[in-house]
Every structure is written in C-alpha cells, then in structure tokens.
C-alpha cells in the first residue's frame, strides 16, 4: 500500500473565537487507502475538506489527529489494522513509528519529500513569477538533495521535453506561458524526483477543455511510465471518471462513500453521491435531477450524527434530527401550508433535546395527520417518535440519533449511511 491514513482529522482553530475550543472541523476521521500505481479520485464540493485532506497527507498542513502511513507493506498494514482493532496500542505505535509520516522529523521529512509531491489547481500562482522555468523544475531535486545543481539543470531540460514543452523554454519565465503550459511545468516539477506518490489538487480546473484533455492524457502516460500512485482531488466527476480507479466521495469534511470507480459513479449508493451524480451535466443528456435543498453546513458547528441529514432526500428517523431542526420545519408548515387547520395561535416549543411541545391546539390527531402527510417531503418530521396529548398541548418525543460509520457493502465498497447499516447491528 502506497499510503494509508487512519482517523486523519484536521480541526482549524478559529482566530478571534470566543472560546479556544471553537474549531473548524475541516476533515474528520478520514481513512484513505492509495494502492501502488493506483489513481484514487477524491471528489467533493468546495468546502468539503478534500484539499485539506490532500495537504494533510503530505504534511503541508499538520493534521490534528490520526496517522499517515507511507509506503507500508501490505502485511504490516494488516498487522497494524489488527493492532488498532484489538486496541494493542504498543504494537500499533511501533508500526506507526516506522511508517507514519507524522512521526518524522522535519529533516527526515525533507528527504522523504523526494517520494511525494503535489500539483496545484492554479498554474498562475503555483509558479514563482520571478523564477526561470529550469529553476522552478529543479527546486525539488535540489531541496531534497536528489541530485546536484548541475545534474538538476540537465534533468530539468529533459523534463520539459517529457511534459511536451520545447527545450528552449528553459530560460523563460512563467508569465510568458499559457495556462496549460504552466500546468505542464508544474507537473514536470512534481515528477522531477521520481516520486512514488503524487497529489493532484484540481489539476485541470483552471484550464480549458481542450487543454484539460491534453493534461489528463499526460498524467495517464506519466503514471504508466513511472508507476506513480496518484490522489486526484477534484470536483469534476468526469475527470475522475476518466483517470481514477478508486473513488472517495467527501461531504462536509467526512468521507461519505468509497469504492471502485465503476461502482461509485455508475451505481452510487449514498444519497449524497446520488444527488451529486445527478447534478453533473453530461453532454447530450437531459436528465431528472435531485436538487439538494439548502447549503452545505457550517463546519464550526456541523449537524449532529450524519452531516448530510439536513439536506438528505431520504433521511429517516435516526439520522440525527435535532429538536431545533424539527421545530423549525414544523413551525413553517403550521404557519404556512396548514394555516387553515391550525390558525394563528399555534406555537412550537423546544423542551429538551428529545422533546418538543406544540401549544395552542386541541387534539393530537391533526398533528399526527400533518406528520403523516408531510413526512415524505419534510424529512425532519420522520424524527418524531410519538405524539401524545399532555396538558394544554401536544408533546412530541424524538428518536435518538445514531452516528453512521463507513459500512462495508457486499460489493466491496464503504457507505457512510445508516441505510446500509448491517441488520446484525440491531434496529431501533
């Protein structure tokens, strides 16, 4: 295995926050596997934490928790997994000490960087405008002490040719190049030390389609020629479909689904992946879309349990509905669509985390009917367990939420959705 992460998290402290514990939970508990010579796609929308995760892998950002095991033999990895699941801390720590990037000192890390590199999205800001192209390409070779300055200059010229640029570009400066040419330079820089792992952060998002195709083909050729493992981070599903073999889908800092490309993209299982796939416009195909309501959540205070549940079209009882969410939706219905039935006096009060109270109405039957009618549309109402008359109002008891994990499915993927919870785990 080229790279394996365990419980990798990054929580950014918020400057000027009132409490020091307020953190932006950009990435939570990410378990990523990148096999040798494999291209792994990581898709997600902006703010989903995919770029943060990619940078954590290379320690460009220091993760808050977790391990990043680099270039670990499969048997050792298995051993480590067992040690973790058996809570054999000593054994796990021993293996992590040998393979984890996070336990390397900065000078060890510098030499290790020879084996890994990154290509960024914006080719305009990823090349120093005041450096000549040869110097740009030679930088990793010199900084990681891969070779001497003279050798590096020679090799930089070869690399220019390798990525399809004329050799006489060596003395040019980045601003003399087009976006596609710059991205080729960035790729040449990234592969200059024969890395074994390449993180590609939106490598083609800033480029035109005709250039994008050239870059994608170049990346594929380089992978085949130098057997590089790649992590392809992008929001463009078609790019992932073209290059990747394994796909991870991220939403709000959490990996929602993982599996082979064919499975995840063609038969998505997680409701978010389904919505994402339906939103992708495909040339020559007008399709029915699942339009997600609302916006991605604020990661300082993410939704409880499943982070997708407030927008999920099939969320059900235990997905994580809070009393506040249900109260808001219920109030909206009572004052809008069901105004004729309930009138002006009705009011929803949050009594506790598991209990709501509707005041200003007589019988529970109306509320029950409303819930039954609207459950299919307004998913939060499914979080109501019982409707009881009590005192001057109606008391609604709620289901306790369950945190989903990445459940393995029979076809070998993982889906972080309670719909795929194995029955053995018991039902509510």
């Amino acid at each position, binding site marked *: 295995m080229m790279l394996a992460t365990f419980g990798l998290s990054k929580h950014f402290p918020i400057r000027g926050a009132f409490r020091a514990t307020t953190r932006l939970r950009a990435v939570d508990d990410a378990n990523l596997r990148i096999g040798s010579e494999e291209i792994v796609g990581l898709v997600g929308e902006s703010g989903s934490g995919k770029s943060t995760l990619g940078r954590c892998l290379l320690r460009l950002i220091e993760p808050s928790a977790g391990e990043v095991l680099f270039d670990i033999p499969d048997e050792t990895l298995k051993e480590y997994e067992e040690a973790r699941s058996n809570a054999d801390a000593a054994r796990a720590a021993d293996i992590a000490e040998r393979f984890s990037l996070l336990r390397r000192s900065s000078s060890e890390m510098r030499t290790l960087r020879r084996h890994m590199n990154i290509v960024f999205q914006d080719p305009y800001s990823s090349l120093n405008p005041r450096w000549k192209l040869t110097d740009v390409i030679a930088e990793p070779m010199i900084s990681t002490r891969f070779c001497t300055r003279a050798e590096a200059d020679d090799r930089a010229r070869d690399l220019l040719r390798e990525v399809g640029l004329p050799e006489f570009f060596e003395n040019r400066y980045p601003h003399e190049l087009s976006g596609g040419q710059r991205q080729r330079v960035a790729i040449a820089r990234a592969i200059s030390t024969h890395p074994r792992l390449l993180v590609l952060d939106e490598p083609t998002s800033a480029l035109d389609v005709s250039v994008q195709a*050239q870059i994608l083909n170049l990346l594929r050729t380089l992978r085949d020629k130098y057997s590089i493992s790649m992590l392809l981070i992008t929001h463009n599903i078609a790019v992932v479909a073209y290059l990747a073999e394994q796909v991870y889908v991220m939403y709000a800092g959490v990996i929602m689904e993982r599996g082979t490309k064919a499975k995840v993209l063609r038969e998505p299982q997680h409701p978010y992946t389904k919505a994402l796939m339906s939103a992708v416009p495909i040339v020559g195909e007008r399709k029915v*879309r699942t339009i997600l309501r609302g916006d991605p959540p604020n990661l300082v205070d993410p939704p409880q349990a499943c982070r997708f549940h407030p927008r999920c079209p099939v969320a059900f009882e235990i997905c994580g509905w809070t009393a506040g969410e249900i109260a808001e939706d219920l109030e909206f219905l009572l004052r809008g*669509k069901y105004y004729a039935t309930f009138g002006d006096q009705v009011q929803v009060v949050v009594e506790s985390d598991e209990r709501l109270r509707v005041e200003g109405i007589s019988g529970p039957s109306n509320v029950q009917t409303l819930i039954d009618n609207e459950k299919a549309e307004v998913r939060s109402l499914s979080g109501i367990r019982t409707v009881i008359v009590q005192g001057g109002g109606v008391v609604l008891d709620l289901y306790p939420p369950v945190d989903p994990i990445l459940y393995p499915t029979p076809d070998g993927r993982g889906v972080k959705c309670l719909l795929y919870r194995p029955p053995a785990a018991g039902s509510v």
Partner: protein
Amino acid sequence: MADVLSVRDLHVHFHTRRGVYRALNGVHLALRRGEVLGIAGESGCGKTTLGLTTMALLARNAAIPEGQVIFDNKDLVNLQREYAQRVGDRFRPKENERILRRLGKAMTGIRGKRISMVFQEPMTSLNPVLQVGFQIAEAIYLQDPARLARRVLARSKATPEAIQELLGVLQKTDGDEAAVHDFAASRGLRGLEEEALSIWRRRDIHASRKEKAIRGLPGPDLRGAERRLLETIVAAGSIPPRYSKVPVLSRIVRRLLIREGYRAARDLLTSLGIPHSERVVRMYAHELSGGMRQRVVVAIALANNPEIIIMDEPTSAVDVTVQAQILELVKQIRTSVNASFIIISHDLAVLADVCDRIAIMYAGRVVEVSPTEEILRNPLHPYTRLLISAIPTLEERPVEGIPGEVPDMRSPPGGCAFHPRCPFAFEKCPTLVPASFHPAKDQVVECWLFEET
C-alpha cells in the same frame, strides 16, 4: 421567429501597449424571441466581449471599427463605430471614453431595464455594504419608479370589496395574467395585480394562506401630500426632475419607493424559490451562500422584466449541486418570464442542458450555430468536433486535446483562424476567411469544408 437582438459583422479591437488585440473579428449572431441561446468557447475566444458589447460596457480602450448590434431597430454601437471609423489608427482611449459616456446615456432605458446581465462572480457583483433587498429595490427604482408608485397607490386605494372581487377573478381564471390585469385596470387599481399574482403563484403556502395574504394587501392610507407625489410620478412615468432635485422632497420620494421596492424584492425572491424571503431581503451578500447569492443576482437582472437576459458564466464559480440548482432555476424562469436568454459558458455540458441553440466561438468569430441536439449529435465545424471529443464523460471514452495553442489575437493567423490546429485544413484555409454555409436547416457553419462545389 423574430429576432430580438441581432449582431452583424461585429469587430471589437482592444488597443493595448503591446498592440491591437482583435477580440471580435466579424461576429454574426441573432437571438430569437423567447429562446435560450448558448455561447460556448474557450477562454480568450471573445464570448464575454460579445456580452459586454451588447450591454455597452466595454473598456475605454475598445474600438468597434465595424459592425452593428441591432436591438429594437436601434444600433447600440453606432457611436463607437463612427468614432473608430473616423479616427482609424489614431485611436485615443480618452476620446473613446467620452463616446462611451455618451453611449451610456443613450443606453438608459435599455441597459438594466430591457437588457440585463448576470455576471460570473456573484460576490463581486453585489455591493457588500447594502442589503440585498435594497439592491433589487434600487434596480427597479432607477429604471421604473412609476411601477413602484403605482403599487403603493393601488394598495392604498384598494377596498376590501375590490379585493373580494379580485379574489373572485383569480379563482375563476386561475391566476390568468391578462384577466387580472384587465380587472385591475378597470377598477383604477393598476399595480395591485402584480403583487396579487405573485402571491397567487406562490407554491410554498396553502390556498387559504394566500387568500389571507391577498386580503391583507390594502395598505394604510397615504397622507395627501404623499399621494399627490406618487400620482404625479405615475402620470409622468418617471420621477420628475423637481422631485429628484429638491433635497427634502427627493428623500421622501426615494424612501417611499425604495420601501415599496423591498416588497417587490421579496415577491421576486420568493418566486425564485428562496424561502423566508422577508428575512433574506434584509441580509447582506456575505450572509448568503453561493447559490442564494446567484439567485439574488438573477433577481436583480429580472427586476425590470427585461426582454433579454445575458448570463456570463453563471455557474462557473459554483459547485455542481449549486450549478444544478441554477440550471433548474433558469429552466423555470424561462417558462414564467417573457424574455430571451443568452448564456455564455465555457462548459458545453451546461449549455446543452438549458439551451435551444448553441453558438461556438473561436478566435473572435462564431464558427458554428446549431440547435443543441444537432450540435451534440452532428457537429459540423472541425473545432466543434474536437471540442466535444475533448470533454471527458462518465463512459471513459478516450479524450483528445486539440493540438496547439489558442492563437495570439494580436496577430491572428490569416484566413480561417483555426487552420493551424485543424486536421482538415486544405490550401484555401490559410488565405481566405471562410464564408457562412448552411449545410442543414437552421445550422450555420463557417468552414470551407462545407462549400458546395
């Protein structure tokens, strides 16, 4: 179908220190009434310049040596063209700026009212220090204050009996626009129908709630002075200069109308599917998410019921799921408003989703215009073919880039600008600019391959 906008042989040249940048080199394009026309092309092909020219928003170093943009029998670029033709090579940006200012004056009543534009970056096209409701209100206030005045007056004049009758008409005709309009006009309540209809069309609330909202329309009585002000504005069709110049008076008029503008903004946002619009109009741009912001920008563009809406890369800065929301929104508003759309995008897949026809631009010319299905199934121009084959799909079909680079428009190649990259180029291509050919119904292509011999 009639053309609402037609662009004829349009040339736009930018005079820069490094030479003349030929952004547009003879664009022919017509926008038909009620259609959604997509303009696709790679960066630097001139698609945004085309949109900006139509809005007369070009920078001061832009010269139009030739061409016309005809809207409502008027040429929108004649001043610039006359200037550019008069001075030829001795083009002076400062002089041109004066022409542009005159052009801007001539465009009042068109720009923002009859033709409006949605820009790529919703964050920068909204003013961060003004409430979004104010920005929508202001768009109406500046272009059509009489409409706002009519609304205020109608509400103050409406009686419960009249509303009862209005409800009757609404129910009988199921919100037919003409019928309600006629009813309002016959009772001297013009302006009321707009609000009543927008409530009637809401889908998020129950019928009884709508009825209550419509019954609640009659507003408080206006003071006599205010009423007279508004009546003058309605009669004049705009704010008379004495009202906009006199200090205190102008404040009163403005306050009255902007307040009404907020109401209109609320209605508009609700119709664009924004929940709690009464709260949203009081928010600032940074409080809204990307999708909401884009909706607000669309609302500003729609505020004056324009005839043409130009959207420049409306989905490039947003995520796929938000993009899906916006595409659905465009599909929805095209059925509910009486406008024609031009959508500019580099993403053919986005255009294919919403457009009736697609124009492909390359190096400052429209090289092909065809109905969407045709352009995808049977692309004619070699550039279009290569462009489509470069788009990766979920089927893992091998993609192929187009060899070479986009030409430097300071010295574009002669003849067909695509010939250096074209696999089918033959002896004619480097020397002669291709003429337009019509190989099939409704398809236009500029390529010598389609010359009939």
